[in-house]
């Protein structure tokens, strides 16, 4: 069997499934569901203002950390299309992140002076196109090799950047502009349409911290929160698109291809076309997050786009639960957030992360939040095996 998603049932999943059952029951009621989702969305937007104890990072700007977490979540959702839906192991995803960032850098400052909002769609289109160009030859090689070929491509993209003057070479590209500010921007006054105060939990009862406000919407180097709002908005848009596409013929074709490529082909699914589509869509989302990274950071260099990052992205998807968009997003947040939250152990974080990956592989291979399907299929298989004693094999 050459499939990637044959999971043995895990004992640990039972507690989770009880919890999910409860949550699912709650979500079955439509008004409750709408209300809960609305509260959830507001909470996500407000998170960096709340300065919640425990969650908030010390020593690192929490808004910046939240931006990174959201960026990783976005990347993980994009990569989930490739790995989780289409079952293609892409170890070179960082390449698309880089292409998105560099297209933005080149268009906005290095060779042209386009505004960011104009460069953004072009960056997405260029990344998507590069996904098609890289995918067309590589997606024909079989699964195991795809991993190594994509790894190679990811590294080639970085090396090409390092060695090409037109792309800024090893020094990178500086002064990438932020998105345009909204509202007045008088110097010294913070600016923005209005200003949103933060909360402070230092004294009880907690009070609104009037001395600490985030202008709406002013994109500057000091306050990362407007960037966070921007990327969270993009994240929700991508999630909605993801839901629409997954729940259609396209999603069915991906799933069928992932489950049994030959059978899918013989049922009339042009599997290559759909794999290429998944690759291109995943690339586009990677490019989108790359563009955001470029504008938030203002500076990009090839040193950012190491292969190691690709491994982290893949780990995020698998840790969260490949095939489940929310699981993948959660994995992305974890991978970005944990190292910053535990900065005091920063020397040890990669070691601990490695151990966590190994532990996860052994004890919860389907990820923290596996797709509902996988869970149901697992339960069904376990049940059937119990009933029949042995698998029927012809």
């Amino acid at each position: 069997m050459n499939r990637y998603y044959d999971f043995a049932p895990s004992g640990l999943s039972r507690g989770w499934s009880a919890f999910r059952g409860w949550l699912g029951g709650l979500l079955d009621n439509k008004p409750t569901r709408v209300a809960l989702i609305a509260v959830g969305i507001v909470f996500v937007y407000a998170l960096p203002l709340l300065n919640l104890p425990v969650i908030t990072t010390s020593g690192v700007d929490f808004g910046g950390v939240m931006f990174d977490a959201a960026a990783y979540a976005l990347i993980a959702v994009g990569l989930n299309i490739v790995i989780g839906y289409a079952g293609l192991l892409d170890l070179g995803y960082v390449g698309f992140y880089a292409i998105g960032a560099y297209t933005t850098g080149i268009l906005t400052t290095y060779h042209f002076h386009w505004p960011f909002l104009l460069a953004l769609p072009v960056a997405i289109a260029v990344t998507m196109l590069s996904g098609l160009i890289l995918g067309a030859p590589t997606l024909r090689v079989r699964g195991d090799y795809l991993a190594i070929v994509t790894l190679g491509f990811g590294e080639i993209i970085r090396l090409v950047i390092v060695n090409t003057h037109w792309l800024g070479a090893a020094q990178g590209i500086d002064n990438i502009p932020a998105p345009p500010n909204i509202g007045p921007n008088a110097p010294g006054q913070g600016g923005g349409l209005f200003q949103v105060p933060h909360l402070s939990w230092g004294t009880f009862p907690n009070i609104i911290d009037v001395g600490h406000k985030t202008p709406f919407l002013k994109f500057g180097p000091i306050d990362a929160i407007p960037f966070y709002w921007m990327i969270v908005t993009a994240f929700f848009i991508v999630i909605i698109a993801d839901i629409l596409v997954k729940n259609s013929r396209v999603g069915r074709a991906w799933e069928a291809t992932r489950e049994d490529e030959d059978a899918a082909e013989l049922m009339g699914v042009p599997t290559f076309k759909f794999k290429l589509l998944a690759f291109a869509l995943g690339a586009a989302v990677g490019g989108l997050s790359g563009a955001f990274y470029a504008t938030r950071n203002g500076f990009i260099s090839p040193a950012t786009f190491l292969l190691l990052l690709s491994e982290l992205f893949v780990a995020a998807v698998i840790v969260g639960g490949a095939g489940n968009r929310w699981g993948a997003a959660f994995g992305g947040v974890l991978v970005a957030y944990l190292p910053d939250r535990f900065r005091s152990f920063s020397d040890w974080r990669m070691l601990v992360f490695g151990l966590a990956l190994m532990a996860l592989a052994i004890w919860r291979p389907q990820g923290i939040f596996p797709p509902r399907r996988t869970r149901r299929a697992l339960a069904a298989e376990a049940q059937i095996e119990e009933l029949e004693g042995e698998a029927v094999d012809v």
Partner: protein
Amino acid sequence: MSEETTDTRRALLEVDDVTIKFGGLTALDGVTFDIKEGEILGLIGPNGAGKTTCFNVMTGVYQATSGQVRFAGSPLAKMQRHQITKLGIARTFQNIRLFKTMTALENVMVGADAHSKVGVLNALFRTPRHRRTESAAIEEARELLKFVGVGGRADELAANLSYGDQRRLEIARALATKPKLLCLDEPAAGFNPAEKQRLMELIRKVRDRGYTVLLIEHDMRLVMGVTDRIVVLEFGRKIAEGTPAEVRENPAVIAAYLGVEEDDDDAAS
């Protein structure tokens, strides 16, 4: 003798002097026969006779070393497998190959999607066209599930269905691709006599709906009971062709099956 009865109907699929060699091994040797529109043709033979190879060349999985397979007059060679499906050949698998993590309904819808032209953009903007094809596919899939007899379990995962229902679901999925020719690869494997009886009824029902059926099967009683015509292979060659009654009397067939009527080994691949 049988020629008289078949002459009146048009040949849907023609296997014309097909030879297949794997390395030094000749799996099929100059096999010629055809399937007429609207009939149920049985393809039988002892193990290793080349049934599965023949099946695979007819569904475009293998390319013939020499000779030609024509479907409705046009040759299949060099065509991609999903194009062959669109042309009108559908199949089931000897060892069930459903999409296990998808529901029964979705499995059938994958088949129904074969003729859909809805892409990402239609899905993304939920265009009327998307809604139309989607609801048509759902309706069609439900109808087919009911037709094969698993209508009540449409929303269960394929992996969750019983063995017999999984086999029937495979037939529904194949029919959803709107084939002219339905190829069944040992659909009765692992069935008890009662299930076999139901399957025979289903195959007849399929034919009565206007499909042409190719049946590869080990179970002689089933083949004899349901087919209009039978082609017998042995060692990669066609040794007989005719109605069930004719084939049963054919000395070459009797010789080929002598001592091997008790074969429940499906090692042929």
